[in-house]
């Protein structure tokens, strides 16, 4: 249909939307095209040797922790262990960039980050052993419970950081998530809230290539996961996730930015899960040996060791010292994990509500009767505990 202009009437001219302008300039938010690296580059010369040596010791310990925990699954001491072998640089850096007052929000694969932050290795493993959901007091260690649902801990990190800022506390929250988790709605909502509230949060995506078996290309069509940041109005940063010095530096800058009121940052660390998703998974079904071998040549522990030995900062003695310390940790962990945890079935009812409801009291009484009958049958009188 043709619109005919009436003779003498002013011609209709569509007007642009009133007063539109972009909210922010997207250019500074975009990640560099290449993941940031320190080890093996000129930037390594500026790195603090003490920090590098500390990162190295923690990497060696972290690798040993992963192999020990994996061995414990084979002995039936852990119900399951999602190994972070190959990703130790991310785990260690995440733990070490935080001050004591800061908070860590780990996912189920980030046990090692919690341990590197100082958590008792056994307390960190109770979820995976199956005796307690969370074996530590999150407030005491400023480590949120290991989160099994994907990305749901990210809004918690935002809320906590926001609350801390409202209270005038100088606290940063660092939240960890995998590449698969970035597809979840909670990832989106958390990043959006964080950016709108300018909350002091750092999001660390460990892009290890696979969400169980699904490769990144089937997970996202974005140029990179770090690019997602620009849509929320926060900077995105790409880093070599096997380069502990680089991850530490990028996260440090992000933490500093958050602490000084600059708001959140999304960091994507490019890394690789050397082991299967968990001990229950068969990785040969979805990836080939050559790919795994290429990443083996880019091992985070070896990268750091080569850098340090090449610059004369680390010798055979130093390597031996780090390995001995790691073995000591592993032996202690093995020994303590080989003791059966003491459980009280009556605890099932203790922490559902602040005050037990009538209904729960009745059910607790029912269980008490069952336990007493069991104990009578087995001739034990340990109150149902320690079986």
């Amino acid at each position, binding site marked *: 249909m043709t619109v005919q202009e009436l003779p003498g009437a002013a011609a209709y001219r569509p007007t642009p939307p009133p007063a539109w302008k972009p909210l922010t300039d997207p250019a500074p938010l975009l990640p560099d095209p290449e993941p940031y690296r320190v080890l093996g580059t000129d930037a390594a010369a500026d790195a603090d040797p003490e920090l590098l040596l500390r990162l190295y010791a923690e990497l060696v310990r972290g690798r040993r922790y992963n192999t020990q925990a994996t061995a414990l699954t084979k002995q039936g001491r852990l119900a399951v262990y999602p190994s972070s072998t190959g990703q130790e640089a991310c785990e260690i850096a995440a733990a070490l960039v935080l001050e004591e007052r800061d908070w860590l929000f780990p996912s189920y694969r980030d046990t090692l980050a919690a341990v590197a932050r100082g958590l008792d290795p056994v307390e960190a493993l109770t979820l995976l052993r199956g005796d*307690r*959901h*969370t074996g530590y*007091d*999150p*407030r*005491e260690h400023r480590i*949120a*419970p290991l989160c099994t*649902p994907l990305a*749901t801990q*990210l*809004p*918690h*990190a*935002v*809320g*906590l*950081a*926001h*609350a*801390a800022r*409202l*209270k005038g506390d100088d606290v940063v*929250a660092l939240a960890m998530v995998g590449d698969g988790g970035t597809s979840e*709605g*909670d990832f989106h*909502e*958390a990043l*959006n*809230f964080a950016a*709108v509230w300018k909350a002091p949060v750092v999001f660390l995506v460990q892009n290890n290539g696979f969400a169980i078996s699904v490769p990144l290309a089937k997970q996202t069509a974005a140029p990179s996961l770090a690019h997602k940041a620009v849509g929320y109005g926060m900077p995105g940063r790409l880093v070599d996730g096997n380069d502990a010095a680089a991850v530490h530096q990028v996260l440090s800058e992000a933490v500093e930015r958050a602490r000084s009121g600059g708001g959140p940052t999304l960091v994507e660390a490019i890394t690789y899960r050397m082991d299967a998703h968990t001990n229950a998974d068969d990785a040969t079904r979805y990836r080939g040996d050559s790919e795994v071998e290429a990443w083996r040549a880019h091992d985070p522990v070896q990268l750091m060791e080569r850098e340090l030995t090449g610059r004369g900062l680390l010798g055979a003695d130093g390597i031996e010292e780090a390995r001995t310390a790691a073995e000591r940790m592993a032996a202690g962990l093995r020994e303590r994990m080989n003791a059966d945890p003491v459980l009280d079935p009556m*605890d099932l009812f*203790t*922490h*559902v*509500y*602040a005050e037990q*409801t*009538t*209904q729960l009291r009745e059910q607790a009484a029912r269980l008490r009767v069952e336990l007493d009958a069991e104990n009578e049958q087995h001739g034990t009188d340990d109150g149902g505990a320690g079986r």
Partner: protein
Amino acid sequence: MTTAAATAGERTAKAKPATMAQALGRALRDSMAQDPSVHVLGEDVGTLGGVFRITDGLAKEFGEDRCTDTPLAEAGILGAAVGMAMYGLRPVVEMQFDAFAYPAFEQLISHVAKMRNRTAGAMPLPITVRVPYGGGIGGVEHHSDSSEAYYMATPGLHVVTPATVDDAYGLLRASIASDDPVVFLEPKRLYWSKAAWSPHAPAPVEPIGRAVVRRPGRSATLITYGPSLPVCMEAAQAAVEEGWDLEVVDLRSLVPFDDETVAASVRRTGRAVVVHESTGFGGPGGEIAARITERCFHHLEAPVLRVAGFDIPYPPPMQERHHLPGVDRVLDAVARLQWEAEH
């Protein structure tokens, strides 16, 4: 509960709220004034005062940091509230409508309800989730769900629903003061209703978890809550002409459930009808009827009956009167109690 005395004192000092909406607003205001850790957040709760105006004036009085307009994202709102509670605040979250709360279900079920348990008591979450629920206001689809059964099925949550102006105030204050998460269901068709007036003189706030007898009677018990209380009160009045002296129990709290008050009433009357808007199949009435049967079997002179909404998705507003249990449907059930008792 220590808030009871203070609450009664505060209320005598101020004008009594006339509607449930005002009482809820007053409860939020008084809680925020008393405790600086109480924060209100949700979509439209700030400048607009909420689509139902429950939070009207809070942002002005307490600032936008304490009454915060959030991005439109229910999982984000509740998830952020979890983090805020982890850091020592007492968030009160507004879900704009019953069916809009569903995106936040994972946060509610996986985190809000479980955090105390997951951390062996180290990290309780004192979060109140306010959900306007139920039909009868002519809302289009997704604005009239009765979602209480979903919440009731989740251990770790308290589920509370007031039916009177006094309870709206008292129970909301108790919910905010609770160290456990509370899903606070607001019967939106009673927000401005005269029917929401308490039939009794103002009573002090009681702890969460106690039912109350709204009308004593001898021949049968109507067990109800929230939006169906006025229906039951009217039915009880109408039943007098039929020779029925009905007792009406207002549950007020679905979790914890007050077995004592309900069983005591049914043992007195020997007959019971559970009345609610939610669907009958898999609805709260089945649980309540089962509990009554288990406790009062030898006192019952008829099966426990349920009067519920039909087992259909909530209907379009021009049809909702056919779905919602009204006085006649309640009276029919009461008549069936007689028939069942005789045959």
